[in-house]
């Protein structure tokens, strides 16, 4: 690809972008949120049309008007937005064969039994464990991601693009993916790999390209560079300390949950969080962390159990009650649950505190504005104005909005579910700083994550969750990646 | 009143020119014995209607129901929501469900012929109103649409002195409307000095739409006297037009309508209303007469193929000013209205008496 340019409503997302992939290599494409990685790959896969520039494959110039053109040329893509790439109410098998269904490669008359059998075989070959007749809507995010990966495998590809495939995957599943990628590479297929987890890049990639603000900054073999080179190229500066940990005094108990239970996903969880304390809950994907966070926030109703905030029984029949009780949640699925993408940043930020911002029900425009400007300034949200639609912000900035809307609610306890998922290193650090500040103000923080390194870097206390239970507790400094992983998966073995 | 003799009607009204049937003619000559009267009791009658909105239909249904009850029978109404295919299905259902007799209200030959033949084959007598079926052995009742139009138009011409500007509120697409239009065409030819300044009408929201559009026309012709009268081919239209004129205070414009319900009558009686006259057949009477002919058929009489129920011209002058009249007591003031004995026979009277005695 050379000289690629693309603008969205007048804003240039790509400037003279160049990119090459060779057969049989894995090429990492890196950059901060909004650098233009996905946009470039969408152009390569025909999802967007470039404004300018040329694309060549095996020396021939290609004009890609639609995904169909790209697929005909052997370019396939595992898109970053999992939900936009699957048909939720159809079966796994059908989603795997989605591409084929669109072309004459699929016979006009379907034989369902054969399709299911073929899908089962394929998944078995890949070593993936997903039931083929299940509706995709009933899968977890990780399983959906696996389906997307499997889907590319049925096609005859020359180039395969993986746009942040590992974000929702567990370590084990990630390893599986890497094995698959390796196989493809050996078969002479060119692979593009996008990720915010830099260690993964060094693990499997041959070359890396770093983008910043729609431009190419650097392309080098991974053997010749290290993490700090990449970070420097990505951010235009170096990042001194990934985990800015402030020491704050730890106060009395502000959140205490007893015997929280919902089906077999959350089984009798007890936990406490003190003022100023950051408590991390780690676990593999599917351990039940998201379910736990939703119970604490009243997003789902628990079968059993009580939650007390600052000594008072919390009302968890609905999130509205939880907010009034002083507990708030930054949910995992940011674009669907955390923010309203079609509304302005201003409106998103005032949503939980409309009561404060109004008198006799009438909203005060000036109060609303000053609230938004305050939060935008405090969190360093990059937006052209408070009136900007939130959907147009980069992932990291969207996440800041999802956190920022709670700042002025007077909440005592912040529950954050995977707040750094898909967020670039720079923004991640910003988010860690915000969390630290909240703790310094005496808030209780419950931080749910499957990134053990984050828990180690950030938390005062780490709880390990496995299969719906808290199986182990570590104080700061006690834990290592290895023993976290041990308990996160060993617990599973115990139960099995 | 003059009978222009354009009863040949449209193609859909393929029935032969009809003579109105006075009661005495249609009465069966021999009074029947008790056994045949007993046999007429407890009949299940189906009433298959094309549409049933508005007070007119409600009163018609009432007339049918009351009369059948008087004869000791029971009526089931099949409503078709102005959908002829549904009406055809309803007719089929009535035949399948083996009703003893079927009354048809509106509809047309194309839609109903097959069903009626099925009924005949099953030995179920059918009497139709305003459907112009023209099927052998099935009596077609009708109200004389052309005559109703003529009665009001002639009066309009007379009141206007044979000249003026009029507004027509009318809509095509319904057989009775299209028949009324024929009289209107003749009227236009006859009175070249009476000019139609505009014509509108919409059946889907008749009253409010007529009101809104009449208001626009009144604004367009603001001088008093620029509009002489409004001729509304349907009482729903007349209500809307009259409301608009009344609310605009243009009391020089007179409204002539067709059809009559209790509600209409109240408006015609209201001295501030511009609606001064209507030609109509009492809907309740239609129901009553309709049932009587069906019972004649049940009794096994041969009935003439077409029967016309005569319309009556009702104007405000004929109505009292001190009390409100209804279609039930209108006969006291307007000759020929209601209490028609059309279609009655001695044995039906006996039947009525026998049922009433119980």
């Amino acid at each position, binding site marked *: 690809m050379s000289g690629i340019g693309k603008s969205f*409503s007048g804003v240039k997302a790509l400037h003279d972008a160049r990119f090459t992939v060779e057969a049989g290599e894995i090429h990492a494409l890196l950059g901060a949120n909004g650098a233009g990685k996905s946009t470039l790959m969408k152009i390569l896969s025909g999802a967007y049309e470039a404004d300018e520039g040329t694309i060549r494959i095996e020396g021939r110039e290609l004009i890609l008007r639609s995904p169909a053109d790209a697929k005909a040329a052997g370019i396939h893509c595992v898109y970053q937005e999992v939900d936009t790439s699957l048909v939720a109410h159809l079966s796994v098998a059908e989603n795997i064969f989605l591409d084929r269904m669109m072309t004459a490669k699929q016979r006009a008359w379907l034989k369902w039994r054969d399709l299911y059998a073929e899908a089962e075989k394929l998944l078995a070959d890949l070593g993936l464990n997903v039931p083929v007749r299940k509706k995709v809507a009933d899968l977890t995010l990780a399983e959906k991601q696996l389906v997307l990966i499997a889907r590319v495998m049925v096609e005859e590809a020359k180039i395969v693009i993986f746009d942040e495939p590992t974000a929702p995957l567990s370590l084990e599943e990630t390893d599986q993916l890497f094995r698959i990628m390796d196989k493809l590479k050996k078969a002479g297929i060119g692979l593009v790999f996008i990720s915010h987890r830099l260690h993964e890049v060094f693990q499997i990639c041959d070359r890396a390209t770093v983008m910043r603000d729609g431009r190419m900054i650097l392309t080098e073999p991974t053997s010749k560079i290290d993490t700090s080179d990449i970070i420097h190229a990505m951010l235009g500066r170096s990042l001194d300390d990934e985990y800015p940990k402030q020491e704050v005094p730890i106060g009395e108990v502000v959140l205490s949950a007893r015997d929280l239970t919902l089906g077999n996903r959350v089984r009798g969880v007890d936990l406490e969080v003190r003022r100023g304390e950051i408590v991390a809950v780690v676990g593999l994907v599917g351990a039940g962390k998201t379910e736990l966070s939703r119970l604490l926030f009243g*997003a789902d109703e628990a079968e059993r159990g009580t939650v007390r905030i600052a000594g008072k029984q919390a009302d968890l029949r*609905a*999130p*509205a009650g*939880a*907010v009034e009780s002083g507990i*708030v949640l930054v*949910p995992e699925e940011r674009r*669907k*649950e*955390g923010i*309203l*993408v*079609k*509304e302005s940043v201003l409106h998103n930020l*005032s*949503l*939980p505190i*409309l*009561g404060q911002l*109004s008198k006799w*029900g*009438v*909203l005060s*425009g000036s109060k609303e504005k000053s609230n938004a400007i305050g939060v935008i300034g405090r969190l360093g949200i990059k937006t052209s104005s408070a009136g900007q639609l939130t959907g147009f912000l980069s992932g990291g900035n969207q996440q800041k909005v999802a956190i920022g809307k709670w700042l002025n*609610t007077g909440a005592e306890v912040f529950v954050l579910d995977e707040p750094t998922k898909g967020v670039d290193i720079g923004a991640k650090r910003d988010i860690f700083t915000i969390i630290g500040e909240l703790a310094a103000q005496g808030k209780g923080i419950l931080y749910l994550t499957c990134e053990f390194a984050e828990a180690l870097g950030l938390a005062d206390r780490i709880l390990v969750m496995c299969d719906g239970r808290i199986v182990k507790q570590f104080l700061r400094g006690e834990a290592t990646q290895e023993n976290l992983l041990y308990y996160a998966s060993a617990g599973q073995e115990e139960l099995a | 009143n003059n009978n222009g003799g354009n009863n040949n009607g449209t193609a859909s009204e393929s029935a032969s020119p009809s003579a109105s049937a006075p009661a005495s003619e249609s009465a069966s000559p021999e009074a029947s014995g008790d056994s045949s009267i007993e046999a007429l009791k407890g009949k299940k009658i189906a009433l298959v209607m094309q549409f*049933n*909105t*508005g*007070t007119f*239909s*409600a009163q018609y*249904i*009432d007339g049918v129901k009351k009369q059948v009850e008087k004869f000791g029978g029971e009526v089931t109404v099949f409503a078709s929501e102005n959908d002829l295919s549904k009406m055809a299905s309803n007719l089929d259902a009535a035949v399948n469900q083996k009703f003893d007799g079927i009354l048809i209200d509106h509809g047309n030959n194309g839609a109903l012929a097959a069903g009626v033949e099925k009924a005949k084959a099953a030995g179920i007598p059918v009497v139709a109103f305003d459907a112009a079926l023209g099927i052998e052995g099935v009596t077609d009742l009708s109200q004389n649409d052309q005559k109703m139009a003529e009665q009001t138009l002639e009066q309009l011409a007379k009141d206007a002195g044979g000249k003026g500007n009029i507004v027509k509120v009318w*809509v095509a697409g319904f057989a009775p409307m299209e028949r009324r239009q024929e009289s209107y065409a003749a009227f236009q030819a006859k009175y070249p000095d009476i000019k139609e300044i505009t014509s*509108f*009408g919409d059946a*889907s*929201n008749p*009253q*409010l739409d007529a009101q*809104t*559009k009449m*208001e*626009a*026309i009144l*604004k*367009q*012709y*603001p001088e008093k006297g620029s509009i002489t009268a409004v001729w509304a081919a349907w009482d729903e239209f007349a*209500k809307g037009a009259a*409301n608009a004129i009344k609310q605009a205070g243009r009391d020089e414009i007179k409204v002539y309508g067709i059809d009559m*319900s*209790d*509600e209409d009558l*109240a408006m015609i009686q209201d001295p501030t209303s511009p609606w001064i006259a209507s030609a109509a057949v009492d809907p309740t009477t239609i129901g009553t007469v309709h049932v009587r002919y069906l019972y004649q058929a049940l009794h096994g009489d041969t009935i003439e193929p077409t029967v016309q129920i005569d319309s009556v011209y009702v104007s405000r002058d004929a109505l009292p000013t001190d009390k*409100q009249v*209804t279609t*039930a007591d209108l006969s006291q003031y307007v000759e020929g209205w209601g209490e028609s004995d059309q279609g009655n026979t001695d044995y039906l009277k006996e039947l009525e008496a026998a049922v009433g005695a119980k």
Partner: protein
Amino acid sequence: MQFTYKYGALIFIGVVLLFFSLYNEYFFTYGNLTDILRSISIVTFVAIGVTISLTVDGFDLSVGATVSLTTVVTATMMVWFEMPLVVTIIVPLLVGALVGLLNSFLIVKVRIPDMIATLAMMYIINGIHKTYTKGYAIYSNMQMSDGTKAPGVMEKDFLWIGQGKLLGVPFPVILMLIAVIGAHLFFKYTRWGRQMIMTGGNEEAARLSGLRVKRVRMYAYIASGVMAAIGGILFAARVGSGQIDAGSPLLMEAVAAVFVGYSVLGAGRPNIVGTFVGAVLTGVLINGLTMLHVQYYVNDIVKGGVLVLALAVTFMNSHRKKTA
């Protein structure tokens, strides 16, 4: 491009007004313009109801039936029960609120999708209002089926609501303007209005932001029912009787007005000002076309054509804005 996108629909109305004014000297008179406004007052209330339900990402298909029900309820209050004016007005409003409550029960509790639930309610209410009057229209001293006469009449004071004037302006027009301005301010400047908009934007995200979305949706449906009820009361006051099935045609008309409104000021979503403009446009067209003496069936073509044109301007451009 941006300009036509934003002002396309308004300019379009301007052109239509200009055309009719030039064509007919009586069109652009105070009397005719207020007549137009009066003629759209009922449908505007219904359309505001639809707008509110669409704002919370619902769709209230039962508004037409609610108009039918409340208009006969209003009339029977006077004609059958000889109630005082206050009761005559309050009862149908309560009925409208009750319909809204039932709708929201089906939608929020039973979780039937909005359109389906309100369609079912539409049938039910249509049946109820006919059962209530046994299919008869309600008018002063009406003939009852038992042969007696109804005791009451449609009160003069009541009819004034639909036919009277205040300071030379038809009263229904005043009511309509109050409702339009009120609803606009409500959505723009009040907490509850904002809550409705946000609920409509993404119900789950709004719920997880601490909104009681079920309650918000319930209020929206109640408001929609009440708006339809006001439409029904106005209908009765306007025609001086309670007509059966009076509201049925209003549903589609209201929806059309709301949809034209999407294009106003480039909103691309339901909005009160747009809805009002949409209703005005329809009213102007019917009035003007009637004065042009076009056949009634041509009205429909023009109405559809205008809808397409107005929307084409908005949506073609809104697309361009997004990807160009």
